[in-house]
Structures are given as C-alpha cells and as structure tokens.
C-alpha cells in the first residue's frame, strides 16, 4: 500500500518535470533556435506579464507595509537566542526538501552531509533548535528546492512572475514549488496531507509564515534601503531575485563563475 502511494507521488513529480521541460525550454519543442536566440540573446528572463506583475507587486508591498513588516519588527524584539533557535528549526525543516534535491542534482556527498546534519540537529539539537552539526564541520548549509533542480537539469526559467503574497518567482520555480504539494516535502506530507497525532495543518502553515517573517526580520534595513534608493523598485527586486536564483542554481559561492564579464570589458575610463 505504502509502495503504491510512493509510486503515485513519484509519478506526479515526474509528470511535473516532463511538462515543465516541454513548456519552458522551447528548444525541446522543436522551435526555431535562431528565433529563440534573438529573443533571449543576453540571457534576460522575459517579463511577459509585466502589467499584472506590477499590480501584484504593489498589492504585496501594501500587505508587507500593513502586516509583514510590523510583524517582522515585533519578531526582532524577541531575545536573540530565541530568534536564532527559531531560525535553526526552520532551517532544519528545510532539509527535508534540500536532501532529495541534492540527490537529484547529483550532489551525493552534499546529500550525505546534509542527512547527517538533519539527524544530528533533529535529535541532539532538540528538533533543530540548536545547531551542533555546524560545530563538527557539517556547516555552510545551502538550501535547495525543486525549482533549482529543474534549473540544474537545464530547464529555462520561463517568464518572470510575481505571486500574490509569495512574491517574485518564475514559471519554472512556481512549477518546482508545486512539487511540495505533490509529495515532494515530507514536512507537508506529515502535517497537512497525512494528519498525525503529533503535528497538524497548523504546524505547517505556522512554519511557512514564521519562515517569511524570519527572512523579513533579517532584511528590514536592506529592503528599506533598496526601496528608498530605487527609481524603479519593482525592477530592482526582479533583478535581485533572478541573480539570486542564477547563483543558487550554479551552486557556487565562487563569484566569477556566476558573473558575465563581457559587458564590463568594453568600458574604458582610464
């Protein structure tokens, strides 16, 4: 019975991956390669629904001003060890998505390291509140998700989109995140999908909301600074999101690997 459920989940995930590959990488669909190149010659992601995106972005900003930012400011008033512990728990939970994606991206060593990290922090670290794994060298944890795996497999971003509440994304990343709701997130599976005696829907949605607030709290000044100093805040956020995804998909901290220098080369001022 369990095997049938597992197979069904795997089948769904595979279906999403195949559909997304056909949808977002036009070269697979037998289109005119020359035309694709001219449309996207500088590697820019198209903003196909810019008008709608800007509308949703404005809505999200209003929501942020009224709800998220005040909550994030309140969250910051909590003692530092509580915030660090909360952040650790959320980071530990994210490993249940990261580990399968490490495997799918062929990062077996990293998958092993992250599995060790999860086991250690979930037990000795009391459900991830403490981070003993980092102290024994299982550190420098980088989150992975289904959208990144699609990117590593060569699936194009598709169009840039802004999702209500959730914020910036691309068609590929949105499809990737759907995998969460189709069996690709064990935390979701044991809370929402298969309610158990110990955890419920509330725990899942509370963790998602806290994750958002935790992220926002860590970036209050950066967001404020960016907004104050932008002449087109929407475009700045879009650029930062897409650069960040590119860097994460390249799985590299090595800056020169992720940057295209060609535009700089022709600028001479000395």
């Amino acid at each position, binding site marked *: 019975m369990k095997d049938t459920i597992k197979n069904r989940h795997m089948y769904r995930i595979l279906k999403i991956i195949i559909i997304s590959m056909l949808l977002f990488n036009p070269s697979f669909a037998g289109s005119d390669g020359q035309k694709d190149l001219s449309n996207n010659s*500088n590697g820019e992601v198209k903003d196909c629904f810019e008008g709608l995106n800007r509308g949703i972005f404005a809505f999200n900003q209003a929501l942020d001003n009224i709800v998220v930012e005040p909550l994030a400011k309140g969250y*910051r008033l909590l003692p*530092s060890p509580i915030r660090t512990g909360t952040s650790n728990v959320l980071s530990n939970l994210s490993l249940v998505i990261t580990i399968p994606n490490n495997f799918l991206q062929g990062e077996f060593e990293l998958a092993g390291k992250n599995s060790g990290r999860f086991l250690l922090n979930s037990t000795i670290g009391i459900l991830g509140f403490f981070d003993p794994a980092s102290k024994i060298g299982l550190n420098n944890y980088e989150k992975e998700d289904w959208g990144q795996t699609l990117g590593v497999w060569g699936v194009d971003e598709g169009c840039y989109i802004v999702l209500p509440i959730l914020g910036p994304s691309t068609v590929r990343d949105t499809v990737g995140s759907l995998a969460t709701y189709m069996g690709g997130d064990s935390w979701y599976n044991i809370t929402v999908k298969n309610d158990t005696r110990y955890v419920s829907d509330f725990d899942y949605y509370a963790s998602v909301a806290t994750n958002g607030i935790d992220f926002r709290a*860590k*970036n*209050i*000044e*950066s967001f404020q*600074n960016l907004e*104050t*100093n*932008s*002449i*087109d805040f*929407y*475009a*700045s956020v*879009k*650029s*930062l999101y897409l*650069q*960040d995804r590119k*860097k994460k998909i390249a799985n590299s*901290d090595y*800056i*020169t690997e*992720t*940057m295209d*220098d060609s*535009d*700089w*080369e022709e*600028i*001479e*001022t*000395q």
Partner: protein
Amino acid sequence: MKSLNLKIIILFIILITSFNSKVFANSMDFISELTSNASNILASNQSKSEKMNQLIGLAEINVDIDGIGIYTLGKYRKSLSEDQIKEYEILFRQYFLKSFSSRLSEYTDPKINVLSEEVINKKYTIVSSVLEADDKRPEIKIDWRVYTVNPEKPLVRDLIIEGLSLARTQREEFNSVIQNGDGKIEVLFLNLREFISK
C-alpha cells in the same frame, strides 16, 4: 643652467605625483584602506550630513562613477548622442553619490574584514570581504570588483553583496525605466532628476 632648472621641475613633478597618489601593493590593501576610512567616518561623532559629505569625497576618489554610469546604460549606451551622454554623466554622478552616501550612512561603525583577492585579468580583481554580523543582521559577504588598468589608481566598479551585483541591479533598473518610457532616455533623465531633488 637650463638643464638644472628642467631637472628641478621634473623632480618637483615626481614629488607632487608621489604625494598625491598612494601606490597599493595589491587590491586587498586598496579595499582595506577604503573600508577602514569609511568605517572611521561612520563611527565618528559628526552629524549625518557631515558624514555624508565625507563619504561622497571618498567615493569620488575611489569609485569609477563614470564607468559604472556607462555600464548601467546597458544596450542603450550605443544609441545616445554625445550631448545625451554628457547630460547622463552629470545626472548619474549626482544620483550615484546621493544614493551611495544615503545607503552607507545607515550603518554605524560597520566592521568589514578583507579576506582575499582574485585577479581575473589585467583589468579586474575581485576582493572578498565580510561585513561582521550584529544584533540586527547576519554576516554579509561583500565582494568588490576593482578596476586595475592603472595600478597606481585602482577604482571600485561594483559591489557584489552575497553574490548579487549592485551595478547589474542598477543597470536592469535603468533599462526597465527606459523600456517603459518607450525607449526614451529622457524618461530616465526625468526619474534621475526627481531622485536628486528629493
């Protein structure tokens, strides 16, 4: 006699130039000194406007503002007339300095540790550093793109914060403004003027 005068003049010029330009052994030294100067300004007891003025002075000497300006025009830089380029350079300089000093003045006593450098080619070196964590934010990794064509006068061309390039973000922002203004550079000029006068 003429020859002696000429020698004195040459010696004088050499002395003047050597006092005006400090030669750095490498780009790491250049960034270390720059960040240390910026930290001293920010940690001082001066008023916010005084700090901003000093930061502006620091940026004018150490940042390639014209180069960044041209870079941020992206594909549009080739379609501008000479007059438009001149006007843009003036506006961009004002915009950049205001934005730069405003961004930095929010920090009080930032601690930046310069870690390493990587020479990409004759023109560019990337210097890696970290901004130490404080109560409000986690540690932030900052890389500096240093333009090294003239080794005696290295200049900063980009800041890459946690892998995200500020110059690239700026370029995409400006390009979006021009694109949404039907490709007219005047729309960008208008936005820059509004920002400067705020």
